[in-house]
């Protein structure tokens, strides 16, 4: 494969859409610091540039090499998560790892590791086994291990997203419908049991989600303020740098988890809808790529990455609009925070590699 052909097959439309989101993010962060490149907007752009470069590098890695390494990635991810548990146990929060002055959250790239490992697993299964439930049990274990480690950190939001990303691959691989429906029934039926197992503070958090006004100083405060900021933005918003809720600091975490709210206040329904559409377009483009690539591994990987990106967006927007509980989830490419952005760019790089190095299934 020549360099020229590779560049031709590069999914430039995806990178363009990602660049649009990064630009929106930089504008929002510029506004979040009252019209300044410091401390967030400038670094956001630099990180995005590094991320784009990474996409190009990953794109040139043969997808078959990635396929061969995929189990190793999962083992590595699980080991790092387990090591964090040991190292971080003294301080109580075991979420971060520090490399050369940069703080990384290993649970984010772990999502990709799970996707790759599952794709490879289903890729290597003989056809006649796809109807048997036994085939899906090792796949569940591949999700469960990192899921439990992240849950223990404790980071419920990331753990659930990781599990959902993995489960969507199991679904895509063709889990028979009777099991799909069966597990949904089991999950719904176990809600009351789980509820009785929850700690008091966890119950309190759920109650806060159902009735945010009750906890006006904690998580409920964030949601109430977020809804006021979004709602007061109206159809076209208050204008760039004019969001009073955000500028007066009513809105907490406006540079990270609540950046969507801040954009909503300044650019209104139109601005928010635009972001949703860009995200959705990226996800659908990746799903379309999954149709075009020939190998089963690439196909499942693309589906997994599309779902991962979608869940990022859905959980974050659902949270700030009060549809989902406050779990602490970033809006990648837009909100300030390197690890989620890096994870998304890594995903895009793998998708690019899948197209560029696509071959007939052996």
């Amino acid at each position, binding site marked *: 494969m020549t360099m020229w052909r590779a560049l031709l097959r590069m999914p430039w439309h995806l990178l363009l859409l990602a660049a649009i989101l990064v630009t929106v993010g930089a504008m929002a962060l510029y506004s979040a610091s009252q019209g300044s490149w410091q401390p967030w907007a400038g670094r956001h752009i630099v990180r995005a540039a590094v991320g784009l470069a990474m996409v190009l590098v990953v794109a040139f890695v043969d997808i078959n090499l990635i396929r061969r390494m995929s189990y190793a990635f999962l083992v590595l991810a699980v080991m790092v998560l387990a090591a964090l548990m040991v190292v971080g146990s003294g301080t109580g929060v075991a979420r971060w790892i520090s490399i050369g002055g940069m703080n990384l959250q290993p649970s984010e790239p772990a999502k990709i590791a799970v996707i790759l490992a599952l794709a490879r697993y289903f890729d290597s299964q003989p056809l006649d086994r796809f109807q048997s439930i036994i085939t899906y049990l090792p796949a569940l274990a591949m999700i469960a291990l990192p899921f439990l480690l992240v849950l223990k950190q404790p980071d419920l939001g990331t753990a659930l997203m990781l599990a959902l990303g993995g489960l969507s691959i199991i679904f*895509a691989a063709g889990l028979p419908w009777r099991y799909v429906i069966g597990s949904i029934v089991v999950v719904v039926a176990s809600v009351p049991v789980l509820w009785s197992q929850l700690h008091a503070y966890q119950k309190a958090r759920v109650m806060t989600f159902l009735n945010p006004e009750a906890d006006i100083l904690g998580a409920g405060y964030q949601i109430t303020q977020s809804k006021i900021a979004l709602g007061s933005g109206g159809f076209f918003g208050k204008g760039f740098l004019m969001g009073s809720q955000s500028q007066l600091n009513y809105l907490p975490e406006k540079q990270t988890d609540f950046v969507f709210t801040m954009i909503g206040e300044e650019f209104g329904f139109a601005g928010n809808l635009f972001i949703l559409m860009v995200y959705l377009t990226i996800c659908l483009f990746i799903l379309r790529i999954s149709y075009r690539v020939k190998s089963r591994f690439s196909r499942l990987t693309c589906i997994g990455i599309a779902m991962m990106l979608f869940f990022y967006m859905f959980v974050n927007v659902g949270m700030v*609009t009060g549809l989902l509980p406050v779990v602490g989830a970033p809006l990648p490419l837009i909100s300030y925070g390197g690890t989620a952005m890096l994870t998304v760019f890594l995903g895009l790089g793998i998708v690019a590699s899948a197209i560029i190095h696509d071959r007939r299934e052996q």
Partner: protein
Amino acid sequence: MSKKGKKDLRRAISRRGLLLAGGQLALTGLLAGRLYQLQVAQSSRYKGLSDRNQFDMRVVSPRRGRLYDRNMRLLAGNAESFQLRVTPLFVDDLERTLASLLTIVDLTPEQITNVLDTAKKVPSFQDIVVRDDLSQRELARLAVRSALLSGVSFGRSLRRIYPQGILGCHVTGYVSPVTRNEIEADQTLRALPDLGTGKIGVEFTHEQRLRGVPGRERIEVNAKGQPIRVFQDVAASAGQDLRLSLDMGIQLHAADALRQGRLTPVKLGSSEVQKAIAENAELRAHIAVGDEMILRDEKKRLVPPESGAAVVIDVETGGIVSLVSAPMFDPNLFTGRLLTRDWQRLNNHPRTPLLNRAISGLYAPGSTFKMVVGLAALEAGVISQKTRFSCPGHMELGNAKFHCWRKDGHGAVNLVSALEQSCDVFFYEIALKTGIKKIKDMARRLGLGDSTGLDLHGEKSGIVPSHEWKLAHHGKVWTPGETVVAGIGQGYVLATPLQLAVMTARIANGRKAVTPRLLTNDMTSPDDFAPLDIAPAALDVVRQGMVKVMYGGLGTARTHKLADTLGGMAGKTGTVQVKRITKAQREEGIISNIDRPWAERDHALFVAYAPIKKPRYAIAVVVEHGGSGSAAAAPVARDIMAKTIKTLGVA
């Protein structure tokens, strides 16, 4: 594998992918619908909430409960202090404003970055505390210049004060600003950064009762963020006031008696004293932590006050009347901004003023342990009141030779006269006959070897050794020689001064296992104590011996009797070797305490109860490296007991 099968699977995956795409569309539609609902349909309502007036919540710190002594003298209260605040909304350039404030008041770089960080996080109309606890001079300077700095204001807040200064330090403990660890453990503290929390002492143990419940204020602000009105949603409820059984009059007397000991105070001003301070690092350390007591010993040397502990306990109720640990410190240092300098001085002080010796200091009980051994022997039936042993000045066991403190021996002694003269050989003999197991059993019943459960943090349990204990901690088998040494309260045996006071109180009480208590709020009725379960006849013999210590012709503390008008006192001396005496030294003649370096002198102990007929108070005194129990500790205990009975009576 059929080609068709592969194709089918590919189709299946594609079909599922299509379903997932459909799911994404539907969920995005849901989000869009929600946004439409918030931003278009209900927009006017939220615009109203945003434009009209806004509310900001503020948590109001509760007033912390006060601490009183038994006569309602204030031990810990709250005083108003002045805070310097900035309101970022009214400040043009926060960094410049802070820089100009730096020229007026003391500010550390951390305080400045802290303000800048906070300003980014909180609504800009909210006040941020720049400095707490402004001095009068700073207030005066600010009053003149702050008018030129917009957005700078003053506020009042409450600061913990300890009006008794150093006197109550080890009982009350202190309050200091909330630490990050405490916030991790208790998220409710995050909203109250100005609130102090108890770190040691009663302030720590009864934190929950003292803290109270925070209140909540709603501040109405307009669109520009300026405050309009303040509503009180929930009033803060003050913490509970607590009354301690301590008597500050006795506490003061006890502190003075313990610290002064046999020494003579000198005036600080004289040039000789100043010169000595300049030359002597230990004296300098004392002066540096604000202690102004310098004394002269028998050899005319200038020395710091004695260190040690004294505990007075009510024999009936278990109420702690006085609890002193020396050296002491000023808890007021901790309430505001603790200067690194003060912290280092307290920490580098050679005699560790922050250590509460009364509950955390472990000392070999020495001869004060002899009551325990005597009671165990009587209970085991290995001796009776009349059993006599002859003391030639030492006892031999195998190859080892155990010496009595009196080289020439005490002749034939029984339990009462052995206690009176503190004969070591008698107790070597009965300890061997009784065995360590029964001695341990008796010691535990008298309150040794386990924390007494006093409501102060950091209490040590001490050690009452046994076969199992030695195996577990040293991996070696217990030897008879160790039983002999334990018979005079040395070797492995360790106790806190509080435990020795409890032991004495239980011997004096005779019926109940008295347990120490500090709070009068929840003082148990004496009937609630567990029964002591020691034969009254045996206790009677031991108490006779303790009376003889004071009144017998050879009693070790006969020169320090408590006045008969106060009911007299019974006690027991204890002198604990800190450094082993070698055979060579013993032959050459032992160097007297006063000629040894301070840290090599014996610990002086004394335990006592009074009055003799109907005991009401028990006391334990430890003078660290004070010399002999009879000369250094007994007079201190006598003075404190006299003051206690004169102050509180015996009714």
